[in-house]
C-alpha cells in the first residue's frame, strides 16, 4: 500500500508505467469484485444449482434424481468454487481498509473480516462438501442422500444470520465515523440486511411456504436486498478509493 505511493520517483525507469499509477494496488483489488461476483453467480446458479434453492418438500426419490441429473455440474461448480472462494477476502480486505480510514478503532475492521470468516464456513464450504459428497456417489442409500441434501441447503440459506455481525459492525463504524468515508445511508441499508438475515433462521422450522429455504421471504426478499446492498457497496468503494489521497497515512 504505502510502498507504492512512496517509491515511484526513485525507481521510475525500472518499473512499467502502469504500476506507477496512484493507488493501482487498490484498483486491481477493486476490479476483482465485479469479476468474481459474476463467477460466483455462474457457479451457484448455473452449475451447482443451489441458487435459487431446490425445493425442501420433495421425496427421497426426487432428491436422488436431482443428484443424478446434476452430479457432474455440481462437482465442476464446487471445484471451481474452491479456486475462487478466496477472492471474497480481497473484497472484504478492501472494505476493512476503508473502515480503518474511518475515525473508529481498527477493531471494527478486524471484526468485519472475522465475522465474514465465520459466515463463509457454513455459508459456502460446509454446503459445498455436503453437495459434492452427494454428487460423488448418487447410488447411496436414498436416506443418506436426503441428509446430504438437507445439510447443504440448511447450511447454505440458514447460515445467513452469521452475517448479522458483519452488518452491525459496518453500520456502527459508519455511524460513528467523522471522516465521511462511506455515506450514512449505507449504514441504514445494512439494517435492512440484518432484518432479512434474521428472517433466514425460520428455514430450520418450515419445509414449505415463505419461510422455507426456498421461500419468498427467507430466500428471495433477502437475496434482492443483498443484491441492492452489494451494488451499492461496490459503487461506494469505487468512490471512496477515488477520493482517497495516495499519500494518506492509515492507522495500523
Amino acid at each position: 500500500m504505502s510502498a507504492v505511493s512512496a517509491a515511484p520517483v526513485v525507481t521510475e525507469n525500472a518499473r512499467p508505467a502502469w504500476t506507477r499509477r496512484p493507488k493501482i494496488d487498490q484498483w486491481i483489488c477493486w476490479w476483482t469484485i465485479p469479476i468474481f461476483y459474476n463467477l460466483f453467480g455462474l457457479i451457484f446458479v448455473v452449475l451447482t444449482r443451489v441458487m435459487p434453492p431446490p425445493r425442501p418438500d420433495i421425496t427421497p426419490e426426487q432428491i436422488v434424481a436431482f443428484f443424478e441429473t446434476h452430479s457432474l455440474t455440481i462437482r465442476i461448480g464446487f471445484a471451481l468454487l474452491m479456486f475462487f472462494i478466496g477472492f471474497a477476502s480481497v473484497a472484504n480486505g478492501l472494505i476493512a481498509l476503508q473502515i480503518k480510514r474511518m475515525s473508529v478503532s481498527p477493531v471494527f475492521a478486524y471484526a468485519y473480516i472475522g465475522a465474514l470468516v465465520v459466515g463463509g464456513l457454513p455459508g459456502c464450504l460446509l454446503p459445498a462438501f455436503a453437495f459434492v459428497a452427494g454428487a460423488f456417489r448418487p447410488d447411496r442409500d436414498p436416506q443418506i442422500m436426503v441428509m446430504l441434501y438437507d445439510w447443504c441447503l440448511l447450511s447454505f440459506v440458514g447460515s445467513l444470520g452469521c452475517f448479522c455481525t458483519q452488518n452491525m459492525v459496518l453500520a456502527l463504524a459508519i455511524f460513528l465515523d467523522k471522516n465521511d468515508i462511506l455515506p450514512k445511508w449505507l449504514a441504514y441499508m445494512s439494517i435492512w440486511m440484518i432484518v432479512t438475515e434474521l428472517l433466514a433462521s425460520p428455514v430450520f422450522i418450515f419445509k414449505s411456504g415463505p419461510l422455507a429455504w426456498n421461500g419468498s421471504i427467507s430466500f428471495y426478499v433477502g437475496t434482492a436486498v443483498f443484491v441492492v446492498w452489494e451494488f451499492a457497496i461496490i459503487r461506494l468503494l469505487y468512490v471512496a478509493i477515488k477520493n482517497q489521497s495516495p499519500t494518506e497515512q492509515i492507522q495500523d
Partner: protein
Amino acid sequence: MANTQTAEVNAGGTTTRAHLPSNKDMWVFVLGDLVIFSSYFIIFEIYRHQQRQTFLSAQQHLSLSIGVVNTLVLLASSWFVAQSVQLTRAGEYERAMRLTVGGGLCGVVFILLKAYEWSTKIGHGLTFGSNDFFMFYYMLTGVHLFHVALGLVFLGVVFFELRNPKLRRVSMVETGATYWHMVDLLWVVIFALMYVMR
C-alpha cells in the same frame, strides 16, 4: 405540512429555505424499509387469499383489545415525538427531552404488551409453526418489534444529544422522529391486516 414547517423555521429566524426534515440518509432507509415491508404484506395477502378459511378462523384467537391498546400507545408515542421536534425547533430543550422520554416509555409499554400477548398465545399452544396465519403473525410482529427496539436506541441517542448543549441539533431530533413515525405507520398497517381485516 411543508408550509407549516417553513413558517415555523421563519419564526425561529434561523433559515428561510424550506427543507426536508431529518436527512436524506434516513429517508433512503424509510422508503426502502417500506418497500421491503410492502413485499411482506403482499406475500401475506397472497397466502391469505389461498387459505382464506384458515386465516379467518386463526384470526379469531387474536385479541382485538390488546391490538387497539398497542395502536393507541404507539400513536401517543408518535405525538410525543412530534411535539418534541416542535419544541426543539423552538429551543425549549427541557420539555423536548421530557417528551422524548415519554415517547420512549410508550415504546417500552408496547414491547411489554407484545411480550404479554405472545406469551398468552404460546400458552394456548398457538406457536410459530401452528399454521400459516400464526407464522405471519410472529414473523411480522417480530420484525416490527425489532424496529421498535432499534427505535428506542435512536430515541436514546436523541435524548443524550438534547441533554448536552454542545451536541443539540434539530436535524438529529428530526431523524429520530422520522424513524419513529415509520415504526408507527408500519404497526398501523400490521394491525389493520392481521387484527381487523375480515
